[in-house]
């Protein structure tokens, strides 16, 4: 059972800028900049937004932040999505290589109601909310992104996991014929991720289907992705085709690749340094100066209790 207690982060509905307004502002700024330079916006910013995104109907959700949103242009052109290429701008350039229709989601493992669903049927029962979350990449940069989605716990309740279910495992689409990055052996494909069941049930954990009021661009993990805002970005697995309830801790892609560097939990933690990067500070995209990184990415009040008594240096 879940009781939603509004926290200090909960924005009033009136605080959320309607998507038309921020889109207009963005367009206005781009037009002004382009006019001033005598350049076209396309030439300035490279590929424009994907034409396949569609507006979504949603309400404002809890856990918001009043920090300025990272511009949509940055959210959709600076991505780690190795299936579409390992450079930051590769995913937006190769976006059309991800085939999202038709899309099937399989739910199975230790649960009473397993199933295979066409995406529309999978999403239909769930009303969408906007969640404005901080996103902290393990590489030391961060963004503020207005996601659109619903709480993962709704899917879990519907699936009715059995007592043996202790973890939830997720898998990204495997399609090396189309996805250029899956023809490189940079990771063991398909990408897999996992959460402990209580982490997956937490109201902060969402399945996102959109951002900035529209369906997800392919480079952001269309048509369905996880968002776990208190963990490093790579935990928020993109383009999910499979959700499985497991008894054992499921393997996760980066942990398999370099276990010393990426743990199963991968909670944002300024006190535990990555062997290659100090995690004390981060650069918010658009800022010149770094800022201190907050414990659990600033969501300690909401999620700290999940890790009470755990040695977070050992379970990094």
């Amino acid at each position: 059972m879940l009781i939603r207690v509004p926290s200090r982060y909960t924005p009033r509905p009136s605080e959320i800028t309607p998507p038309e307004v921020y889109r207009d502002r963005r367009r206005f700024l781009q037009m002004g900049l382009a006019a001033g330079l005598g350049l076209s916006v396309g030439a300035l910013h490279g590929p424009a937004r994907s034409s396949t995104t569609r507006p979504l109907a949603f309400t404002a959700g809890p856990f918001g932040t009043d920090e300025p949103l990272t511009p949509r242009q940055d959210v959709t052109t600076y991505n780690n999505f190795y299936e579409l290429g390992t450079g930051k701008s590769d995913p937006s350039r190769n976006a059309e290589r991800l085939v999202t229709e038709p899309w099937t989601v399989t739910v199975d493992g230790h649960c009473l109601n397993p199933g295979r669903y066409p995406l529309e049927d999978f999403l239909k029962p769930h009303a969408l909310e906007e969640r404005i979350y901080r996103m902290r990449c393990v590489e030391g940069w961060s963004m503020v992104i207005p996601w659109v989605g619903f709480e993962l716990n709704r899917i879990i309740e519907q699936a009715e996991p059995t007592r043996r279910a202790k973890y939830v495992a997720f898998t990204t689409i495997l399609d090396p014929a189309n996805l250029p990055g899956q023809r490189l052996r940079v990771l063991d494909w398909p990408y897999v991720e996992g959460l402990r069941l209580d982490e997956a049930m937490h109201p902060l954990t969402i399945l996102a289907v959109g951002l900035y009021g529209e369906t997800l661009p392919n480079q952001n993990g269309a048509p369905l992705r996880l968002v776990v805002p208190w963990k490093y970005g790579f935990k928020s697995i993109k383009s999910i085709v499979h959700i499985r309830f497991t008894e054992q801790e499921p393997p996760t892609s980066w942990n398999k690749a370099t276990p010393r560097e990426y743990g199963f939990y991968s909670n944002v933690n300024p006190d535990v340094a990555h062997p290659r990067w100090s995690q004390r500070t981060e650069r918010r995209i658009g800022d010149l100066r770094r800022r201190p990184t907050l414990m659990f990415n600033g969501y300690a009040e909401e999620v700290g209790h999940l890790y009470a008594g755990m040695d977070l240096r050992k379970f990094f």
Partner: protein
Amino acid sequence: MLSIQALGGLGGLGTNPIEYLTHETGIWALRLLCLTLLMTPLRRMTGWSWPMRLRRMLGLFAFFYACLHLSIWIGLDLFFDWALIWDDVLNRPYITLGFTAWLLLLPLAVTSTDAMMRRLKRRWVQLHRLVYPAAILAVLHLWWLTRADYREPMLYGVILAVLLGWRVIQRWPWKAWSGSARRLG
């Protein structure tokens, strides 16, 4: 306002301009270092003299880019937060390697003048062999900071292996026996 978004966009520096500048200056330092190391083999194989005249300039350009790379990291990325900088230099192996490579290049740049060359004589040649470990450390630095896609560090690793391998072959004992051993720069 501390936003450099517009500036970055205008300069084509992308969404994370500081990361972009750091990477570009580092890669150019490495490219110039490899070019510098190409000059001696080029001269030996072709007999042209211009590569040797270019060598010092290329070496100094490499050092200049290495200085830019280091300054951007210290001044822009970490904003002169010396505690953080020191922690990184000591505890992040790839930064330790990169910083050591820069330290090795420093005396080479200082002693690059004709006057220093005359003063140090034979020891100048010995000293300037530090360019080999510096180049190796630079490639390891790139290798170690790479997350999963090793194609770029591998490319520079192969280029450096060829450039240094050529020198090893030139010095191999059989060369001495056949009487064709030559001094290497």
